């Protein structure tokens, strides 16, 4: 429609098992990613008895996707009890509570290990500040529970030394009372998981929230974080907003700002207008109708 200078290379990422028994992403997918560096991904489902770890976890490990970025902006036309939300959650994605290290000490006693390393903490803190700088954001707030888990989150010391930063524990109260006071939030894995979903809930849920995962070697995968919704698959009923906004994030990442702005504006205007909306947004149009409406607006903008 808008002639964005992108060529798509489609790859499947269903896990395959190597001869040594290890589960990996198919090599064609890995090669393609490493060559192109940028990816756009839809929802993945791991069947319960698959015998292999979650696909998302596998992708994260393969490309060392250490930062999960979710901008949450209130959408005009899609009303929630919270307005004026404009924040970004940055979550450390590789360690912390999701290290997967658990042991049964004796029968009936389980120990889970939460691992925090200085390197990973420093890396995510630096990323958060760079992101804030590149996107003209003013405050970075580190979210932690260091009053209980003392040693953890040394990067907050790093932050305090370098920049003007608020250190906050107990984020949940101010978040639900006045989310507009937050700008960029940086946090370890578990809090990140909880808070990024909480923020998605503030703006309307996972169906409208974009997300990006940034990796060590310049690799970045943008994705929608909602489920696979098998009950409506193939019926032209899905809401493409989350994936579309993730694609917009992707365009910004590769510095195609003009195109990103046009598509984003078209999408928001369509929702604000309220005439052509998918079912979850309160309308009863089909996915293709919603898409055509957005395309029409994009064309009109040109």
């Amino acid at each position, binding site marked *: 429609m808008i002639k964005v200078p992108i060529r798509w290379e489609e790859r499947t990422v269903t896990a395959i098992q190597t001869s040594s028994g290890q589960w990996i992403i198919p090599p064609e997918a890995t090669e393609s990613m490493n060559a192109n560096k940028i990816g756009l991904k839809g929802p993945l489902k791991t069947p319960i008895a698959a015998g292999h770890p979650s696909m998302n976890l596998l992708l994260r490990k393969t490309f060392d996707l250490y930062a999960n970025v979710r901008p949450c902006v209130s959408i005009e036309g899609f009303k929630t009890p919270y307005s004026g939300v404009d924040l970004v959650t940055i979550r450390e994605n590789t360690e912390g*509570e999701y290290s997967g290290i658990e042991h049964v000490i004796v029968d*009936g006693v389980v*120990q889970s290990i939460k691992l*925090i390393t200085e390197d990973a903490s420093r890396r995510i803190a630096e990323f958060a500040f760079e992101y804030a700088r590149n996107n003209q954001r003013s405050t970075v707030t580190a979210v932690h529970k260091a009053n209980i888990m003392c040693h953890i989150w040394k990067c907050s010391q790093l932050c305090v030394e370098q920049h003007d930063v608020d250190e906050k524990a107990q984020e*949940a109260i101010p*978040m639900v009372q006045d989310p507009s006071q937050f700008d960029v939030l940086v946090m370890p894995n*578990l809090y990140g*998981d909880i808070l990024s*979903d909480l923020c998605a*809930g503030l703006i309307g849920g996972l169906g409208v929230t974009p997300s990006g995962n940034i990796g060590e070697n310049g690799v970045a995968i943008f994705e929608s974080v909602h489920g696979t919704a098998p009950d409506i698959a193939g019926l032209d009923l899905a809401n493409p907003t989350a994936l579309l906004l993730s694609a917009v994030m992707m365009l910004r990442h590769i510095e195609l700002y003009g195109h990103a702005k046009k598509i984003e504006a078209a999408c928001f205007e369509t929702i604000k207008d309220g005439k052509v909306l998918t079912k979850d947004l309160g309308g009863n149009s089909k996915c293709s109708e919603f898409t055509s409406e957005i395309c029409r607006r994009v064309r009109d903008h040109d």
Partner: protein
Amino acid sequence: MAALRVLRSAVKNVSFARNVISSRTLVTGSFLNSSSPAQFCSTAVQRPDGDFKVTMIPGDGVGPELMHVVKEVFKAAEVPVQFDEHHVSEVQNMASDEKLDEVLDSMKLNKVAIKGKIYTPMEYKGELSSYEMKLRKKLDLFANVVHVNSLPGYSTRHNNLDLVIIREQTEGEYSSLEYESAQGVIECLKIITREKSRRIAKFAFDYATKKGRSKVTAVHKANIMKLGDGLFLQCCKEMAELYPNIKYDSVIIDNCCMQLVSNPYQYDVLVMPNLYGNIIDNLAAGLVGGAGVVPGESFSAEYAVFETGARHPFSQAMGRNIANPTAMLLSSANMLRHLNLEFHSNLISEAVRKVIKLGKIRTPDMGGYSTSAEFTAAVIANLQILKTIAR
């Protein structure tokens, strides 16, 4: 070795049950009609002169101010309670193991306490366990109950909310077990045990049964912490089978948070391990108006401690006369109900609710301009009116 451990814990469980039964036989008829499920375990000792003795731990931040409010209101309402004050504070260098022992001795006698938050400093001073946590562990206050209720007359984004959050308070992520396994690598241990998970699950279902609630939802992250939270979930599921009249389901913590901000009405009673409980307590408090309006209580088999639901010392408000006494007053009213002082309990909670409903006198956290003193005076004025009507 393992067999011995199992035997030891089995014996402990039996003696726990025996204690419960023996204290029940001391209870009077009126007590059995009381509302709190742990009440049959912890009776306050009534003094010959008719006054109940209650341990008071003011804590830090606005804690002492709020305790002062409670004392004033109790005086105005002529509540037959005497406070046995103990000042424990890490930040004011008034904390030590001896002080903690004094508190424990006081609790052994009185069984009931009202307390503010003992602030946990952020810096690591060589001690991983804070005094607040030590107190909880020594008294074995395993269950923290926060009843999140919308206040009539104070509208927030979600009105008419009625939610109960039950949190396991003695293990999980707050086990204070951390160490530096290599340079720049910290490990923090989260411990989940079958015994404590069963105990909190049973508490939750007992609570739901007693209070006539219909559903208990377990909150977890067992898809990631398969063994730890998996064990917790399994214990909840097993316990659910013993209570066929109560519906049971489970929800993952991140989804739960998302649902709470968009549609909190789908939940009734929530039960969860330590850390998630801390987060959800605070979140839910935010839904109905913040840390200043939600009361909370902690129970063990023998003791009951009344405090605020979302525990913050709120140091920035210290001395400025702006703290909201609602949460602490409602908690003190709950304490009176626990002591079977129904009349005084209703008097105080009605007076507080009336002030909030009228809407003229509100502290800054509720969007008003009044001071704590003005709020307190309004509550006392309402008390006098209600007392005269009662007569």
